[in-house]
């Protein structure tokens, strides 16, 4: 019998919990073993309870792993990659489900590549509603990698788990859909908090997707991705667990109740949608691209622009279905 393949799971929270669930059938079948590492005690507890052997550090967890699953948001990817890079190798398949960007509007796969020798990177996008997994229902996700063998490796690792994967080579498109979807949830939350109606909130989601498409075309993404599972397929269910926080934070900001909402400032600042709006607005200006939603959210967050008038002005502008 072949040696079980080693799977590394880095990070914690609901994503790590979900990842452990996805690989569990393979662990039971003896096809792979799981080693994990998380910075916090909570994260390590989640990993341990999920059946992973907890390593002393990120590099130890990653060493000799065939597949590495990163369960952290985009703003933490660079740091985590730095911790694991000394043990990284070119044959490893690296999976992330981040829905944001890093400094300079670096997409998650660009962050991973800039900090390590990893190239075979897989992005999970689309609805990926982790509560479905908890209720025994199938998870649905877009899986994107430029390497077929990386997609095949992930499929092999989650074999037996209730997971429907729709694959594409367009990792740029899938990552943009995820990042802009979080900005859309933030904007919709802002709109709700400021008293705008549900139609307006829905239109902000539509604008987020259109904006992702425009940026995507300029960045070499495929148009079809935005009308597929990662784009429209994510917009319609729009109940992704990590995005609830974006809506809640947006709502508190829009209603002016952030201080009483229990969200601390540091966590809000590091929220994927907040970082994406800030970095995206700067990035668009630098390249001379139009990104009205990112710009509006950034002005509300950073310049104290009034929420309702700013979003209403945005909604007044032409939707630009065909805009490039």
């Amino acid at each position: 019998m072949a040696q079980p393949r080693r799977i590394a799971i880095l990070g914690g929270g609901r994503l790590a919990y979900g990842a452990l669930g996805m690989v569990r059938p393979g662990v039971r079948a003896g096809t792979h073993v799981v080693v994990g590492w998380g910075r916090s005690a909570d994260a390590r507890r989640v990993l341990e309870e999920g059946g992973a052997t907890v390593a002393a550090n990120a590099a130890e967890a990653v060493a000799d792993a065939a597949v590495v699953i990163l369960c952290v948001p985009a703003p933490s990817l660079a740091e985590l990659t730095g911790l694991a890079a000394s043990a990284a190798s070119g044959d490893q398949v690296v999976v992330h489900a981040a829905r944001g960007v890093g400094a300079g509007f670096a997409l998650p796969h660009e962050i991973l590549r800039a900090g390590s020798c990893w190239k075979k990177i897989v992005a999970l996008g689309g609805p990926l509603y982790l509560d479905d997994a908890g209720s025994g229902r199938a998870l649905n996700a877009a899986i994107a990698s430029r390497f077929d063998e990386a997609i095949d490796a992930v499929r092999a690792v989650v074999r037996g788990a209730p997971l429907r994967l729709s694959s594409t080579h367009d990792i740029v498109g899938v990552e943009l859909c995820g990042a802009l979807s979080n900005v859309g949830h933030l904007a919709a939350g802002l709109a709700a908090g400021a008293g705008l109606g549900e139609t307006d909130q829905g239109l902000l989601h539509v604008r987020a997707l259109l904006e992702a498409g425009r940026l995507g075309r300029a960045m070499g993404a495929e148009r079809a991705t935005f009308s597929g599972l990662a784009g429209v397929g994510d917009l319609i269910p729009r109940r992704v667990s990590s995005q609830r926080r974006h809506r809640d934070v947006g709502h508190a900001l829009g209603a002016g109740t952030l201080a009483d909402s229990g969200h601390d400032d540091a966590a809000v600042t590091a929220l994927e949608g907040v970082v994406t709006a800030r970095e995206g607005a700067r990035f668009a200006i630098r390249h001379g691209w139009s990104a009205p939603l990112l710009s509006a959210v950034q002005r509300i967050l950073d310049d104290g622009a009034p929420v309702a008038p700013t979003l209403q002005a945005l909604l007044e502008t032409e939707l630009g279905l065909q805009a490039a």
Partner: protein
Amino acid sequence: MRAADKERILTDVVARVVEEQTGRPGVQLDELVADSVFHELRRLKGEGGDEVAFWQGLKREVGHASARELQSMVRRITRRYAEEICGRFDERVYDAVTRAGEPVMGLLLNAISPRRLVEGLPHALGGGGLPALPGVDQSIVVQGAVSTLHRLRERGTILLVPTHVSHMDSIAVGWALWKMGLPPFLYGAGLNLFSNPVLGFFMRNLGAYTVDRRKTDPLYKTVLKAYAQATLENGYDNIFFPGGTRSRAGALERKLKLGLLGTGVAAYTHNLQQRKPQRERLYIVPATLSFQLVLEAETLIDDFLQEQGKSRYIITDDEATKPKRVVDFFSQLFSLDSKIYFTVGQPLDPFGNRVNDDGESLDPGGRAIDPARYVMRDGEVVVDAQRDAEFTREVGERVSEAYARDTVIQTTHLVGHAGLLLLRLKNPQTDLIRLLRAGGRVDDVSLRELYAEVDRELVELRGLAARGGVRLAPLVETGSADDIVADALRHFACYHTQPALQRRGDRVSSPDRGLLFYYSNRLEGFRLERGVGLTPALAPDHRTLSTGRS
């Protein structure tokens, strides 16, 4: 290629291609042969001789051939193509040429003109070099990662991938290799370059193999790639021009042809599988060539500006085929103390990672990594065409970035760019193609405006150069706008039929706007036009005009 290796490599290439073709699922051998016959007879339409007879013979046989006979036909076609690509090679000439060095490189430059060759031959073969083209040695500046290239060549096989603007490139690269003390590399040269009997003789014996771009048979391209890959596997350093053909617009290549470039990762993987530790290391070395003037600029830009779809992939009647133009070009270039810069870029491994002087692959953080892991699965080296295509695409991107970083901007590029930009600004209602073809309402600019624009672009370029984003020729690096403009105008006036820019009193105009566009395009992609609110002139791939507002 050494004679001892030739037959072995040819046999290997034929065996590999035949096995690949006959083993492909769904491939009908009769269709494969018929396809080759169709493409070749179409190319040879109106011609006679042995070549036509060969293909006519196959045409007669293919309809009623058995499976074994069909396989034999594929073998014959493959062997024919492989022999043609490999060409004739005389080891004695190779040895003499590589020992002789400078005199022979002088001969090469003169070989474009058989008459001058005959005049210079006795002197050159006597070891005295050629007096006919003084200054060649001083005119080619070799710079960049030269010492790294030397060290890596001792550790593995080199795949040198230069920019391509002129037929003079292969000769200049050959000269640069000799200047660096390296032996000739193998390279695929267009069949038209072999049509000059003297140049063809030397090219063949210096390692050039034939690439016949008129051949549209897919099997020919397969054989060509297999041959290139086999030579790399056997440790022959190669030169590919990944731009595919000379840059028609004069711009740096952005969209590279990845077919031959992809043989790098294929050869690397093959040698790993064959466990040939002495041949495992393979390095891809980008290089740039920068000419102050380009021999074939007029023809190339005319071709680019042909209506969409009418430009020619192969040009057989340009300035490079006219001996007098070639001699005029070099004489005038050298008389102006003009330099040709050959810049060796930072080497890469077959996966696009940087390598250090010891030939180790590095991750972006500078840590040494094992490149073999990229082609491994569960500890075993595996062949995966999709994976390799993706790695090759990435190598192409890294090479393209190196081209921008290592190209040397000369006065003609900068002043050409500034001049055309001013004409675009003065004719805002005229789109670029109309401006180039028919001119605008305003067809000249003041010298003062030109100096000011050159100054503006200098600030950006010098800043970029300080950050390692481009290289500048010495005058562009430190000279004043006045001196830079004067130098460019001198060059523009000296060789081309009409100058790209000329001065009349305190005004500057462009008698040949196409040529101005050509030299301007060397700065395409550096976003200098954004500062004055214009869009790029070329599309992002630099192969067509931009659709944006001029």
